[in-house]
């Protein structure tokens, strides 16, 4: 029977195509990130940061050479899992990367099964740190974003907030936690969830304008959602609103350049001002290396990538010096991390979370500038408030 012969042939194909073990002399650090597909930009920028982190580590630590091996997970959980397994087979000592709970979840499970440390900055979901994995670490959770959004609103003294959020995983979860904290502070909160396919936000904004009469609008979504919400807000001009506050991917130079009329006075999470003003020696060195390698300004994703790579490299070095690296001692070394980094203090708890993580809030201001306006100790300029894009 030909069919069965074909089946055997197909199997031989599978066998021959995938077998290529790699032997390593230096320490291999595995990176699993979405480099293609809808998350391509996020993945690539994070990878740039990781590369800078490793580059800087290697130049200051001549005795420990770290080499990156990168695999694209294409935003698919099965492929993320396969990527980690391939990296483990190639002899990686640890895995870093990941974006989104759906990719980090399976990937870090696979890393755990292979006994490898997994460190990420791309997943904010609480489920990730409630699995009891001993090898899992992340530098930033949803709580740090919620703290920043809530902190900004409470400093502004607004009495009512409308939360407009996408039904996607990370956004829905963050919206719920912001809601919880704001409600606990006796601030009136109204929730508006939206389908990611929505294009016309005017009916939503009209509800905020006529029914909620809120003083603040929290936008928890992605770039296309921000554009839609801000356009609708600019048309409806709800008179009670004093601030338009978003989260990730909003207070970025790219948004300012692409949508110059929508961004003025809009707030979003941002780890640093733009033009970047690093004032520590480490920050200056980071910026210099980033510019040398990529001929552009580092962004927040690059910064997160840099920090996770840096912490991991240092832990690998400590573990290798003690001779515990081959015996699974890396997780213990990562857990000992206690450092003030470019994204603030990092110290991991039992679950692998970094409870001290706190985002900063930036505001788009005149001249394509992004000014850090929260928290107080990081402020780089005066906050415009009340201020909205249409005034």
């Amino acid at each position, binding site marked *: *029977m*030909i*069919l*069965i*012969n*074909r*089946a*055997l042939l*197909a*199997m031989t*194909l*599978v*066998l021959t*195509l*995938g*077998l290529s073990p790699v032997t390593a002399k230096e320490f291999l650090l595995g990176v699993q990130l979405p*480099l*293609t*597909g809808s998350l*391509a930009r996020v993945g690539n920028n994070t990878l740039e940061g990781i590369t800078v982190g490793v580059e800087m580590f290697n130049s200051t630590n001549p005795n420990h050479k770290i080499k990156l091996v990168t695999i*694209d997970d*294409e935003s*698919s*959980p*099965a*492929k993320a*899992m*396969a990527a980690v*397994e*391939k990296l*483990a*087979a190639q002899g990686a000592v640890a895995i870093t990367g990941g974006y989104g*709970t*759906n990719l980090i*979840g*399976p990937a870090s*499970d696979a890393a755990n099964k*292979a006994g490898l440390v997994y460190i990420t900055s791309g997943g904010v*979901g609480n*489920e*990730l740190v409630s*699995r009891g994995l001993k090898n899992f670490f992340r530098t930033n959770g949803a709580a740090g974003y919620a703290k920043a959004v809530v902190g900004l609103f409470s400093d502004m003294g607004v009495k009512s907030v409308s939360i407009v959020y996408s*039904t*996607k*995983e990370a*956004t*829905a*979860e963050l919206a719920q936690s912001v809601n919880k904290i704001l409600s606990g502070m006796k601030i009136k909160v109204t929730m508006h969830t939206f*389908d990611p396919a929505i294009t016309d936000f005017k009916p939503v904004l009209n509800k905020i304008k006529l029914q909620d009469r809120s003083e603040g609008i929290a936008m928890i979504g992605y770039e296309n959602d921000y554009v839609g919400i801000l356009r609708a807000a600019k048309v409806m001009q709800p008179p009670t609103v004093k601030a338009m506050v978003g989260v990730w991917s909003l207070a970025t130079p790219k948004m300012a350049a692409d949508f110059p009329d929508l961004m003025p006075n809009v707030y979003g999470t941002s780890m640093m001002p733009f033009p970047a003003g690093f004032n520590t020696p480490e920050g200056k060195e980071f910026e210099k290396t980033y510019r040398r390698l990529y001929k552009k300004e580092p962004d927040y994703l690059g910064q997160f990538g840099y920090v996770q790579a840096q912490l991991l490299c240092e832990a690998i070095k400590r573990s290798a010096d003690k001779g515990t690296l081959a015996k699974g001692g890396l997780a213990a070394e990562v857990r000992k991390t206690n450092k003030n980094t470019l994204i603030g203090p990092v110290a991991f708890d039992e679950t692998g979370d970094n409870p001290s993580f706190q985002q900063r809030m930036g505001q788009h201001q005149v001249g394509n500038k992004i000014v850090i306006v929260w928290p107080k100790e990081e402020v780089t300029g005066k906050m415009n408030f009340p201020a909205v894009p249409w005034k």
Partner: protein
Amino acid sequence: MKQRTQIVILLVALYVVLPFLLKGNTYVMSILVASLTIAGVALAWALLGNLGGMVSFGHAAFFGVGSYISAIVTMKLGVPIFAAILMGGFGATIASIAVLPALRLSGPYFALAILAYAHIFKILATEFTSVTGGAGGLLGIPPLPTLLGFNFGSKLGAYLVIITIILVFAFIYARIRGSYYGFALRAMHESEDATRVVGVNSTLLKALMLFLSAFMTGVVGAFNAHYINFLEPDYAFHIGWTMLPLVAAIFGGYRTLSGPLIGAVVVYTVDQLVFKSLIPSGHQIMLGVLLGIIILFAPDGLIPLLKKTVRRVRQTGKCRPPQTDATC
């Protein structure tokens, strides 16, 4: 007799040789398991297409329902996992009852109506937060269990589970196809009136094929949930669960039994190992090209084409270009 020997060889190869050769290489194993997951859906899709005469653009609906039901009954009710996987299949069958009104629709309408169902199920999964975990999804879905001292949660275990699922389904499919009803079902493509005359209730048969196809897809979805240990509406009902099996089945030849299976393994593996390295971003473009080429030049798929070629080679001793030989 010869066929029986070949089946034994195939079984030995699938259950002994292949696992033995690959057991150390988890990466190839996971590519294989992922491609077999697609193969399972492709088989179910082809069953509906071949025997039911319906092209579906919404098998993701059944895949998602099966995966969610199995995950929920294990996590909330503590049902044993293999039982839960079967329940996932039955759940998908029950969901397919909702699709019954669409059976009256002609080809393209049915194909796109079922797409709407996939969309509706996804929205329901997002909205019924208390049961499904909503957009946040379910993390930490229990892995396949350890039974009789063997860990099915390992790569090898997952491979053995999915290959067994596929072989059982292929066996059922083959039996139906070879039966009187299978003959009637295939005759239905030629003329629905003719089958009515010989006393076959075509709507009932079509409905049964829909149930069976949904069941198979649901079981594969449930397997995948316990293999990946994670679900969210976007993932469980992703269009990819329809698209890849469709391309695979068309590529291999959806009127044959082995076509969808071999198609899935070949398409997935080549996509992952070859196309992806050629075009890192947007390598799925090659899937579209593949689909176009097959539809235009070999609408029956690759396996029938190969069979014909081989037969011709055996008959004439050399291969002639197709246009000179109308019967090929």
